[in-house]
């Protein structure tokens, strides 16, 4: 294990950013989101949750796939270059890291998404333990330990020192390259980290959602859940905006569109939301015609379809961003609770 004085963090960031791109939580106009590190960026490691999850680092909201140009009546297709520069994402939380695991299932299984794969290959994740989890957090429910997120490197923030522990080869390599700013940690430091973890676990136990039960969601429940009358009640306040999907660390749906730049056509993909009425719109219309169906789709996907296809892995990680951000105060917790109450009845 290594450590670094908090006062030296900027030196650390500078060093990381020297040869790589560095993404970390930055405050822009009052909101904290992952963004590229610059000398004058307002880095904010205290805010628990960035508004958007850091999934952009691997799966950007919008990315060009290829460009078609026309010259003398001939078409030319130029694929967009794959990411070939190493980068570090610093400060992802346990839930965020788990979100990437979910995305891996989608994008790294055949057929492999080459854009995503290239980013995963070049990206190193430094995960930060959550010092002060909040009331909207329920990562524990999905088996995430926010006190010890497992990524390439795990870091803990204490009063005035940050502990650094590499877990993978990528993590070791990064650590090695930062030798000039990272100091070796001793056993008292190890103990401090253990204490930190224990303190965090204690807080997690106090969180209102921590004991949310997923009972009734595993197993062959597709038809039962799908046909439930509850959806008709639950979706009502939904505005059909895409906030929940865009802040979610695991939502992976995208749309592919063309943009005419005047000099050629760029084919790009961008996040889409299953909450939108034009999601997967086809010539004949849409296969989900009501907001109830769209609402149901999102939660069925997270809690039923995805686990069914991925050895029981839910595609919710309990980050609670939807709890925080839904304009109508809807969220996955309310859905889970509604169904468990239904069970009680």
């Amino acid at each position, binding site marked *: 294990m290594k450590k670094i004085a908090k006062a030296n963090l900027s030196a650390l960031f500078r060093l990381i950013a020297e040869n790589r791109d560095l993404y970390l939580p930055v405050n822009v106009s009052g909101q904290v989101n992952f963004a590229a590190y610059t000398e004058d960026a307002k880095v904010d490691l205290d805010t628990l949750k960035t508004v958007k999850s850091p999934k952009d680092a691997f799966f950007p909201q919008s990315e060009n796939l290829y460009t078609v140009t*026309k010259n*003398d009546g001939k078409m030319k297709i130029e694929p967009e270059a794959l990411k070939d520069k190493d980068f570090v994402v610093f400060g992802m939380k346990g839930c965020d890291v788990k979100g990437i695991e979910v995305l891996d299932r989608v994008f790294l299984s055949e057929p492999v998404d080459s854009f995503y794969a290239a980013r995963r290959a070049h990206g190193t994740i430094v995960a930060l333990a959550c010092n002060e989890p909040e009331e909207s957090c329920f990562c524990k429910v999905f088996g995430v330990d926010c006190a010890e997120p497992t990524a390439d490197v795990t870091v803990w923030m204490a009063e005035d020192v940050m502990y650094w522990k590499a877990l993978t080869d990528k993590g070791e390599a990064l650590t090695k390259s930062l030798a000039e700013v990272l100091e070796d940690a001793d056993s008292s430091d190890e103990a401090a980290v253990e204490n930190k973890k224990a303190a965090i676990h204690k807080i997690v136990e106090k969180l209102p959602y921590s004991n949310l039960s997923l009972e009734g969601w595993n197993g062959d429940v597709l038809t039962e859940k799908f046909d439930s009358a509850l959806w008709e009640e639950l979706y009502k306040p939904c505005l059909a905006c895409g906030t929940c999907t865009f802040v979610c660390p695991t939502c992976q749906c995208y749309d592919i569109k063309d943009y*005419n730049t005047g*000099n050629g056509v760029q084919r790009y993909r961008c996040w889409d939301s299953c909450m939108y009425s034009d999601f997967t719109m086809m010539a004949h*219309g*849409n296969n989900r*015609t009501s907001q109830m169906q769209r609402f149901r789709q999102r939660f069925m996907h997270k809690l039923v379809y995805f686990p069914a296809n991925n050895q029981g892995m839910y595609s919710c990680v309990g980050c609670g961003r939807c709890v925080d951000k839904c304009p109508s105060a809807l969220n996955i917790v309310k859905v889970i609770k509604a169904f468990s109450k239904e069970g009680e009845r």
Partner: protein
Amino acid sequence: MQRVGVFVCHCGSNIAATVDVKRVVEAISNEPGVVHAEDYQYMCSEAGQALIAKAIKEKALTGIVVCSCSPRMHEATFRKAAERAGLNPYMVEIANIREHCSWIHKDIVEATEKAVILARAAIAKVNLNTPLKPGESRVTKRALVIGGGIAGIQTALDIADAGYEVDIVEKTPSIGGRMSQLDKTFPTLDCSACILTPKMVEAAAHEKINIYTYSEVDKVSGFVGDFTVDIRKKARSVDMDKCTGCGVCQEKCPSKKAPSEFNRGLGTRSAIYTPFAQAIPNVPVIDRENCIKFKTGKCGICAKVCQAGAIDYEQKDEIITEKYGAIVVATGFDTIKLDNYDEYAYSQSKDVITSLELERVMNAAGTTKGHLERLSDGKAPKDIVFIQCVGSRCADDRGKSYCSKICCMYTAKHAMLIRDKYPDVNVTVFYIDVRTPGKNFDEFYRRAVEQYGVNYIKGQVGKVIPQPDGSLLVQGVDLLDNKQILKQADMVVLATAIEPDPDVRKIATMLTASIDTNNFLTEAHAKLRPVESPTAGIFLSGVCQGPKDIPETVAQAGAAAVKAIGLLAKDKLLTNPCTAKADELLCNGCSACANVCPYGAISYEVKEVNDHGIREQRRVAVVNSALCQGCGACTVTCPSGAMDLQGFSNLQIISEVDAICQ
């Protein structure tokens, strides 16, 4: 995908001299949809149109772009050509590479580049065109003529003679207009009244003509073939049906100090009056501002003396609503105000008068019973100075930029008449140029000089200085002698510029007829459509379109009549198919579009809509394509884009924007 043919016109050298047409053809050959491109010397010629027809057939074109002159010039030509070749005429787009390109740019590279871009925009647009079919609208077989002067009377007579009903709306109490105020007419010197009065009588007696005098147009709605007009018949205070025109009321009226409009304010009239003896209708009007009864409630003499009991003090303005197929504007002119020309002492001396006032002085029925006398003291003048171009041909805003056209001739007429009747009076004319184009016009002017000894001086007057003895000192210049001239005169006549009747602006707005900076109505084409307004169904007669003399006015009046008759002769008109259309799947039924529609063409229906499988009752907008004129106001008001304009759709305009900006 369309199969587009592009035809680039040389327009002789009009385009080809500044635009490399071959290069244009080459540059657009690879544009999306283009399967054919060629250039030709004159696309609008028969041979050019044949080329287009041939390509349409041989290449199975679904759309064509003609790169040529303005669509305002030949769009119709090419649409017809396409239609003859079996293509929907609305699959034609014009790239204006003449007026908007070759004629204004000098550099051939630059102009060619621009022509290519304009062609690309048109190609992009035509790729999104859809075949359109015109609708039909009915024609009301009745014409309205606004203005009862010689122009209006002639137009009305010609239309009526062709068998159509005509209404004349005249704002003054009698028809006759400016011509009725004139004494003699040039170049024949025949009496104005003698030739006008029979026309007035003929109009009044014509069974197809209905005259509204002392009336004004209040409101106009509708469109070509189907105008609805509100006519305000101002309260005359005299019952037109009862009045016998005996004239006793006018004689007995105690209020006789009102300035006579007919005599240009030189004389007075009674409060109940007909403007002149031959007025049609011969029914007086009570001028309520000067009437003692209306001012004080006492008097009522006219009612007492009227044996027919025609006087009606209670009469109110009446609104008549009538439908018309065509409207002819014949609102005529007035002389400009001379407030900006202090140097001529018009406001300081009664002996400085305008030419139109001189007409009333010279006229036997005028204020001086036809005697030429000074208005200040009634003495016979010995020296008269005429000043030309007062307020005409002026570059600043004191006057008018145009030549008033009639002044040279009427001044020669006045000079000649004075010298004829009073050979001892000296007449001097200060002129800048003497302009006499017209049949027998220059001969007329030369007679004034050679036969009548009128003293023409090339040069202007700088100042007219009233002298203590009542005479006028005229300071001018003789440019040919290079001498300044100081001339004693006892009368000065100003050839005052004419301007369109000030009310025409209001009328043009109601008619949505365009008007130029001088308030002359704009013709649809300066050369080819001189008697039509760009607004369909509106025709122009007389000076409202531009300065002209009586024969020209009468000629134009006839031409306007023919155009109106041509319209009225049709039973149905094809309507412009470029109308708005609502996409009921997107329509919110919010009524915003109906709020901005100037034609009331949008209404709402509650109907069942099948939105990709969802069936529900929705309130949706429906456009009446016969009423819609295609302005597009609704399309921008519609937030969802449900309302679109056929022929100028959102995507079509956007495709043009993209093509230009790329």
